[in-house]
Every structure is written in structure tokens, then in C-alpha cells.
């Protein structure tokens, strides 16, 4: 255990805080990553394919708390290391892939705002991408007017759907860049992020006729991918999480239209008609499998996404578009707890807060409390363990893990309530025997 490099205090604090809140840390994922090597390997091959100008589309499917988000963040980190631009966002009631009320544009804006590169892993990298592109063009322009040079370099972009205006906007940014016109630059960035709601405004400020709207979500991303490659990046990786929100849409029509867009993305990537763009979509099993409202309700998607019928009984096929996150084995979970302990100790094995036998005892405790489900959904177990360690750390000498273990409460994972408004609290004062609290149809 002591072979690992000592981690930075900043990383340690970020990881501890994230684990205790039950969310995925943005930093230092490698310190707590265990298992799932084959899944990671297949995603790495995807990333290589994108960097080589290809296209991919993967569905990461797992239960609530199974580590989908963790997995997506891991992939994101790797992609950034390999010089890809990464855009990541969660779907929600007001962020979808297809919509008519601005929700798709909302998702687009969220994605582009969070555009990250290796040097800017926190996001907001769009400006630097565009400027990198302009600087490169400028250097290669050798005296030609910058706008002309840019238009020349974007010649093939102009041929793409919606590319004409896209190229014009990039050229407008260059114009503003040259002239030191911050207003024009901001307007161009706003356009590129899909923040214009009406054509009239875009026309007045940038002189273009079209905007990125609900209907051009995917086309807009393809243009960004192309721009990223022209700017010298490997390509664009788009990570969309919480796709279960599409499953929860209450209108058949809306679900179908979203699935149509997913089909389009999937077809393009399977046929290799797009360049330098990859999608990783995270969702729960019912989002995939439900034949009434999930992806499988859409015939064309079902046939493309159906599991390999030979991959049963422990055999896996990770070359298909769907990656089922396999359960962590008890050994892997033990390993994970070790990692968490190590994080608390800042990587220094002499400062471990609890001995190895405490890890065993903790797992035993979890199993007796919620059964085998605990290692299928690491989130709640890890959170409880982090809480335990935090108490021991802050009460050195007085807190004994043996005594504390009995009072650790681990709850089975449940879906996050989307009706978390004041409405949800209205009836909470009632007893636990309330029939509706555990209502099942």
C-alpha cells in the first residue's frame, strides 16, 4: 500500500468531501479506482478511435449507485489526457436531446459551457479552443487577411449541416479578436454555446441567419468536433449522464423523438459517417430495457442494442455499443475500502485509521444490514465507510471502530426523487407504517 505516491492535501480533501456527500470527486479518481479494467480498456480503445478521426457511441448501463457516474468521470479524465475535448452534462427535466421548448438548446449550452481540455480540465475551454484555432490559422496565413484565411480553413465545415453560419461566427470571433472588440467576441461565443434564443437577436449582433436551436443539437456538436480537430485536438467526447430522465418523460411523443435522435447518433457512429466525435451515455437498466418506455420501446434501437446472446454466464462482450457495468465483487469492494482508508491517510500507510480487520468487519456489517445488494451499489457503502473514518479521525483515542460499527447505518440505494420540491415533504411527518410511503403497484 505504501508504494503509492503521497497525494496532495487538496486532492485528499476533495475526495473525502465528495465521498461523504455520495458524489464522484472531480480530482484524483485514480486513487479510488478499483476493478472494471476491461470496461475501462474498451473505453480507452474508443478514445483512441476518436483521436484517430473515428466515431463511437457507448451506453454505460448500471443500477443507481453502481458507479456509472464514476465511470464516466474516469473516461473523461483519460480522454483529457489523450488531448480530446470533453463535454459533459446531466440530462434533466429541462435538458433533453430533442425538444421543442428550448430544452435541447439548454442541454447544448450546458455541454458547451463545460467544454474541457487537458489544460482546462474544469471546463469553460471553448474560448481557448476557438482562440487556439485562430492563432494557428494566423500563423499559417502568412499575411493574408485573417478572416479570409479562416474561411479557407473552414471550407469543409461550411459544407456540413449548419456549417455555413458556424464558420461565419468563428470568422466573426476572429474579427473581434483582431480588432479587440470584446462585445463581438462574446456574441460569437454565445452563438457557439447555443445561447441565442431567437434568430432576430443573432442576426442583429452577428449578421447570421441561423442559430443553434432544439432541432440542431447533434449537428451543432458535430461542428464543434470538427472545430476541435482543426484546432489541433484529437476530437470531441460527449458524456451524457442520467438518461433515465428520458425514460421518465410523460409523453410518448417526446420520448420517441429523443430516441430518434439517439438512433441517429448511433447510426452515424456505427456507420462511421462522422469524424472525431464520440458519445458516452449513462443510464439505468430500465432506461435501456423497458419495452414500453425505455430505449427498447424503439424497435430500431432494440435491434441495434440487443445484448450478445452468447455473452452469458460470466462471459462478456464489450465490443457492442452497450456496456453493462458488472457488479463489484466482494474482493473489489474490499479493495475499494482499502483505497478509501488510504485516501484518508493521505497515502501514508502508517497513518491508517483502522486496521485491516475493520474492513472485513465493516463489509460483514453491511451484508447483514442490507444483504448482498451492498456490493452492487458501492455508493452507499463507501459513503458510510467514509463517515465512519471521519468520526474516528476527529476523535482520536476516544472513538473505537468496534463500538462505532454497530451504529453505522447503511441504506439500500434508491432512485433520487425528482419531486424534491416542497411537495415531497408535505406528508413526511406520518408514521413509517404509512401504506403510501412504500407503495407498490
Amino acid at each position, binding site marked *: 500500500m505504501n508504494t503509492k505516491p503521497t497525494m496532495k492535501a487538496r486532492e485528499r480533501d476533495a475526495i473525502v468531501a465528495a465521498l461523504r456527500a455520495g458524489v464522484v470527486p472531480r480530482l484524483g479518481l485514480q486513487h479510488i479506482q478499483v476493478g472494471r479494467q476491461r470496461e475501462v480498456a474498451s473505453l480507452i480503445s474508443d478514445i483512441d478511435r476518436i483521436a484517430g478521426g473515428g466515431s463511437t457511441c457507448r451506453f454505460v448501463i448500471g443500477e443507481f449507485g453502481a458507479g456509472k457516474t464514476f465511470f464516466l468521470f474516469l473516461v473523461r479524465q483519460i480522454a483529457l489526457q489523450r488531448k480530446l475535448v470533453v463535454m459533459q452534462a446531466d440530462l434533466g427535466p429541462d435538458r433533453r436531446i430533442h425538444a421543442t421548448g428550448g430544452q435541447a438548446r439548454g442541454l447544448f449550452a450546458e455541454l458547451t459551457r463545460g467544454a474541457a481540455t487537458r489544460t482546462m480540465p474544469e471546463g469553460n475551454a471553448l474560448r481557448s479552443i476557438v482562440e487556439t484555432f485562430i492563432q494557428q490559422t494566423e500563423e499559417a496565413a502568412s499575411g493574408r487577411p485573417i478572416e479570409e484565411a479562416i474561411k479557407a480553413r473552414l471550407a469543409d465545415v461550411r459544407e456540413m449541416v449548419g456549417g455555413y453560419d458556424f464558420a461565419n461566427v468563428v470568422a466573426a470571433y476572429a474579427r473581434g479578436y483582431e480588432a479587440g472588440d470584446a462585445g463581438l467576441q462574446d456574441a460569437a461565443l454565445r452563438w457557439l454555446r447555443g445561447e441565442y434564443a431567437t434568430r432576430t437577436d443573432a442576426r442583429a449582433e452577428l449578421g447570421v441567419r441561423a442559430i443553434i436551436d432544439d432541432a440542431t443539437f447533434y449537428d451543432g456538436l458535430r461542428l464543434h468536433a470538427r472545430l476541435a480537430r482543426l484546432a489541433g485536438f484529437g476530437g470531441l467526447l460527449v458524456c451524457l449522464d442520467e438518461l433515465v430522465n428520458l425514460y421518465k418523460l*410523460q*409523453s410518448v411523443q417526446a420520448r420517441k423523438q429523443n430516441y430518434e435522435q439517439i438512433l441517429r447518433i448511433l447510426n452515424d457512429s456505427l456507420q462511421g459517417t462522422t469524424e472525431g466525435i464520440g458519445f458516452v451515455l449513462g443510464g439505468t437498466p430500465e432506461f435501456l430495457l423497458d419495452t414500453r418506455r425505455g430505449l427498447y420501446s424503439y424497435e430500431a434501437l432494440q435491434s441495434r442494442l440487443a445484448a450478445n446472446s452468447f455473452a452469458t454466464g460470466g462471459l462478456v462482450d464489450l465490443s457492442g455499443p452497450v456496456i453493462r457495468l458488472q457488479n463489484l465483487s466482494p474482493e473489489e469492494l474490499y479493495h475499494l475500502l482499502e483505497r478509501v482508508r488510504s485516501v484518508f491517510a493521505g497515502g501514508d500507510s502508517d497513518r491508517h485509521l483502522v486496521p485491516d480487520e475493520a474492513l472485513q468487519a465493516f463489509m460483514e456489517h453491511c451484508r447483514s444490514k442490507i444483504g448482498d445488494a451492498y456490493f452492487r451499489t458501492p455508493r452507499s457503502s463507501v459513503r458510510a465507510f467514509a463517515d465512519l473514518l471521519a468520526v474516528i479521525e476527529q476523535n482520536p483515542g476516544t472513538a473505537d471502530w468496534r463500538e462505532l460499527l454497530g451504529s453505522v447505518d447503511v441504506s439500500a440505494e434508491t432512485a433520487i426523487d425528482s419531486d424534491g*420540491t416542497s*411537495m*415531497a415533504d*408535505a406528508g413526511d411527518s406520518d408514521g413509517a407504517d404509512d401504506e403510501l410511503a412504500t*407503495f407498490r*403497484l
Partner: protein
Amino acid sequence: MPETPTEPMTNSPRSVSDRTSSVGAFGLLSEPARRWVERQGWTSLRDVQERAIPAILAGGDVVVSARTAAGKTEAAFLPLLTKVEGDAAGFRIVCVSPLKALINDQANRLEGLAEACGHPLHRWHGDVSASAKRRARENPSGVVLITPESLEAILLRQGVHARPLFAGLQAVVVDELHAFIGTERGIHLQSLLTRVEAIAGRDRIDRIGLSATLGDMALAADCLRPGDGPSVRLVEGRDAGNVVKVQIRGYVRPTRVPEDAIASSRHAPGASPREDGSDPAFEAVVSDLGRILRGRTNLLFAGSRRNVEAYADALTTACGSAGVPNEFFAHHGNLSRAHREEVETRLRDDPRPSTAVATTTLELGIDIGDVAAVAQIGPGSSVSSLRQRLGRSGRRPGTSAELRIFVIEDEDGPAAHPIDRLKLGLIQSMATVDCMLGGWCEPPPAAGLHLSTLVHQTLALIVQTGGISAKAAWAILCGRGPFRSVDRVRYAALLRCMHEARSPLVEQAPGGQLMLGPGGERLASGHDFYAVFVTPEEYRVVHGGQTLGTLPLDRITLPGQTMIFVGRRWRVLEVDADARVILVEPTSAAMPPRFDGSAGPLHDHVVAEMRRILSGGDVPTYLDQTARSMLEGARHAYRELGLEAASVVEVGTGVVLVPWVGTRKLDTLAAALVAMQHKPAARRHFVEVDGCDTVRIRRTLARIAGGDHPSDAALASAVPSPAIAKYDGWLSPDLMRAVVISERLETASLRETASRVLASGTDHEPGDTPHRAGTET
């Protein structure tokens, strides 16, 4: 014609009084509101405004009641617009109104005031353009005037985005509050207001109700704030409003002749024409209608579809033969939507005089708010419906509300049913008018379950939230909202039944949230999903494979009952709620009492009033000459039949029970008698029991009065349950029985009803000869 103003003409607009007395309330208003008042040239505020302004400014729920055109709207909006503070985003005042036409009308009245106070005014209903709505939605502010159905549409379509629209809401105004009392639409509105409060994240948003003056204002208070009526402050304006003119006109139809009903069933309205096919009473009514209504814009409520067609056709023909342009247009549920809208548009926007001839059932669907006069054939169904009908006329200051009721009664003849001699149609019309003038109004059934509307609201809430847990849904709809009689166990049963439908309405996500099932998606995507009120489907009456006609069935009809249809007596064999068919066979009998096609349950209070009229002696001035003589005859018959003392009359081979109770109690009694091996038929005001004599029926009634009667559940299952409310069809038999017990029967009253019938007959010894009244010379 002898019209009787029920109020003296005191309607001088904005009567001038000394200015000082008004300084109180006037001084409380904001500067712009005061300037607006002065610009109107008002020299004083009216009484209702004086009282309402301080009450509303103080905050909390308030019901403001006054007569039509007494300035209620300003009484609410002057203080509300004074009160609206700050620049919080979102609508500040939402005003819910039952009719689009009223909204348009109010928008004209309030526009200046709102503008003077610096707040935009938005109209929001089905006829407002999508772009105007979008503008209001994107920049929500000021006042929005809206129908309940459009409010539902906003919540459904905007979902989570509705929160910013309502987050800054300061008050909700409910216009025409009395129109919502005790109706499904009222329950819907209450539920909507709760949902708006929930989405705005507030416990309470002040509600201001504008109501007609009712005898029991607590009803309005309860309707405004279900479950906490006593906290609502009542403000009653004493201004004279517009004059109300009411007249009841009587028409005598000459003696009927029994005829082959099937052959004549395609003929005139609910009528038995004479042998030459003519019906003098009908013709007289048509001629008077034409004379009175022509040249102005009116509404004529004619009852069933068949009646509507017959009257519209006769009036049109009369116009044609007189060589004048046609002004009469039919309006009922079988006509296409386009045609109905054309009629409505003509009444609303066309300067040419026109009269819509409408069914009772589509009453809420006619969006016409301001006509010169209202006419009605027959007594109508309820006091509140009569009040609403009357309220459609005389809305402008200085005009009067006019209502004429045309009642056709049969001439007394040797073959007539003795009960027909009581002229119950006329008496009921008078009772309804008296109740209305006395400010009485039907209270909603206590502890009504309203499961149909709850089904609707559950689906709506799912769409609005995009999925909600059962517990949270219960907390909003039943815990906070109007469905207080539904406990958790029953709500769970309702959800299960919604899930177990052939095409499930709801399903559940793995996390436990309720979501729309395939059936629910279909319902929720329909254009008629926003409304809970519905045109009752008419049932086909079928004998031996031949359809005799259609009948709106909104009352309990039992197999084994006899019913009167197209002038003949039938026995009901089967009621098929799915196919909406009533199978009948002819049954031999003496001349049946006339079937009263008008719909809706009668309340005990109205029936008691009828008895008071029959036993009283005064003659109201609102009756015309014929009606007066009818009333006299009816009172004579009442005494002659001995109904002052007895409640059992032998007729032909059976008996008639007249307990003088409302429809629910009457239906309960009939259901009990069916369960106890009698053959009763519940009519509108009495129960007829075939093949039975006084002694036997008294024995049965004594058993009931002693408590020996079938259980609630047995009564309810003996009753076929027609789907009356919009989503009744989705309820399981168990839940439907619960609805029947709680809303349509009144089992608790059974013993008392039976005792009443027995008690009023105690003058007679058990073996005494009952009143023979089958024939008269």
C-alpha cells in the same frame, strides 16, 4: 306581459352620496388607483367596495358578495392592485373565471385600472392567440385572467417551468364563485389552486372569491378554502344591483290520448300529440317564444337534444313563414364543434339578433356571457343552475336580468294520472325560483369522494411533475387539496385500480414514482384532458333491437324499474353502462305519469319548498294567468288526494309514495324497495310501487323504519352505476360502489324517509280505506 321586478328600480348608476363617507376606504387606495377612480367620474365608492377594500388590504381569504353589476370586480381589484408591491417576477394576481366571455368582458373593464397602476393585464383562454400567451409566459407579470382549464393547461405544459410564473403570486381571485360550489369543476378548481400554491412553494396564497349573494355564505367560504371555511372573511355589499325579472308561463296541453308510442316516437318533443299529429301547447309555446325572443340576443334552454331540435326547427320554420330572417340556432353535443362555435360567435360578436337553443347538458360548454334574456322550457334541474342561467343576462349596468320559464302541463282529464294533477313541473319551477330569490344554493354533498376528478388530478400531477411518489401525490391532492374524504388506503386502492385497467393509466418507476401508463398517456394527450366537466353521454333506449330514442342518464336507473319514454311505459330489463344502452320491454299499465326529462338530482330543500307551495295559499306575482289557474288546480288536487296528511296514495294496481324528499333519498328508498322484493320506480318527486297495496307497503316501510333494511353495500350493489363523471368509467366496481354510497345514495336517511311516509299517514287506521284517486269525474 306581466313581469314582476323582484326588486324596485333602484339601480341608478353610481349613486352620488356625500364624499366624506367614502374617504375611509378611498384613502386606503394607492395614488394611481385613486386617480383612476376619480377619472371614472365616480363621486363615491359603492357599498361593497367600501367594505371590501379594507378587508382585502388586511390580507387573508375574503369572499365578496353582491348583486350582479354592483361593482364587485373593482371592489376586489382596487385594493389588490394597491397591494401589489415590488417587482417580483411572475404573475402577481391570477383571476379565475368560468367563461371565456366573462374574461373578455372583465379585461375591458380592468385594462384601464391595471394600466393606471402600472401592471399589464393578460387574457388567457382557448381563444387567445398562442403568441399573446407566449409573450405573457416569457415575461410574466401583472394580472392574468384565466379559465380553470387554461390554468390546468399551463401547469401541465409548463411543468417545472410553471414555478417562476407563480412564485411571486400575491392573490388569486375566483370570479363567479357561486358557479363552482358543489360541482366537479369546482373541485377541479380547488385542486388547481392547491397545486399552484404548492408549486409556488407557499402554504397559502390569499384567495378572493366574488360571489352572488347566497343565503348561506359559509358555502362560498368553504368552496373558496376547502377544509378551512371559517377562516375566510365574508364581505357583503348592500348595493342594489340590476333588476331581476322572472316570469313563469303556464301552457295547458289538452287531454292526452293513449297511442302507439313507437310509431309516434319520432315525433314532437317529449309529447303525445293529438291524433292529427298537432300539439297545441307546443305550438303556443313556440309562438310566444318567437314573439318574445325575436329581435334580441337570447339563450333558450330546451332540455334534451330532441327538444332542442324540435324547438329550433319550429322557431326557424316560424321565422321562414313570417318572412323574417332566421334568428334561432340549435346548440347541442351532437352538433359538430365548428357548428357550435359558429353559433357562439354569432351570439357574441355579430350585431344581428340571435337566440341559441341549447340543451341542459351542454350548459357549461356554451361560452356566452351576456345576453338580453334567458328562457327555459320546464323547471330545470337545480337552483344553482337557474342562478347561473339568469346570471348570463343583465350583466351590463342599467340592464335587467330576465328569465322566463315555460311550463307545459297536461289538462286534467279522466285518464290522467292523479299525480299529474299536482302540476309538479310548475310547482318545481316555482320552488326553484323561490329558493333562488331567497339566496339559497345547493350545498355540495358532504364527504363526496369525487374519485373521477381525483383520477384526473392524479394524472395531471404526474404530467406536471414528470413523475411523483404516491405519498407526495396524496399529500398534495388529499392532504392539502380538496379530496379530504379520501384516506391513504383508498388512494392506494384508486392507484391500483388505475394500474389494473385494461390499458393501465399509471405505472411505477423502479424508484417508486408514479408515471403515466399507456392509457394515461392517451388520456393526457387528448385535447379534452384539461376539463373535468363533461357532456353526459346519452343512453340509447332499445326495445327488441329497435332504438326508441336517446336519453341522458344521470340518475340511477334500476333493472326492474318502469320508466316512461316516448309516451309509453316500459320496464327496464338491463342497463349496459359500457355500450350506453338501456334495454326495455313494454309493460301494460294505466296511463303513466309523464316522464320528466330534465336532469340533475333535486335537493331536499327544493322538494320541501314545493310542498310548502302546494299547502300554502299565496299566489306569486311572477305567474302568468294560465299558471295561476294551474296553481289553483294543483292546490285543490293536493288537498283532494289527502297529501296534506298522507304520503301513500293508491293508484291503479299500485301505490304512490310521496315522502317529499330529494332525489338521493328517493333513490335510496327505491333501491331498498327493490332489494326487498318490490317493484318500485323512482320518479322525480315520488316513488311508484307497482302491484302492491297500502297495507303491504306499510308493512315493508315499517321494517325499514325499524332498521331492518339491506346494508349500504347491498343497496349499492343492487344499483347499476352509470358513469356520470368524466372518469367514472375507470373506477373499479368497489370504488364505484363507494362513490354511489357517498354521492348518489343517502343510506343514513333511509329509516327517516320510511318513518316520514308512515308518520304522515297515521291519521288513518291500518285497515282504513286509503284514498282512492284513480279516476275523477
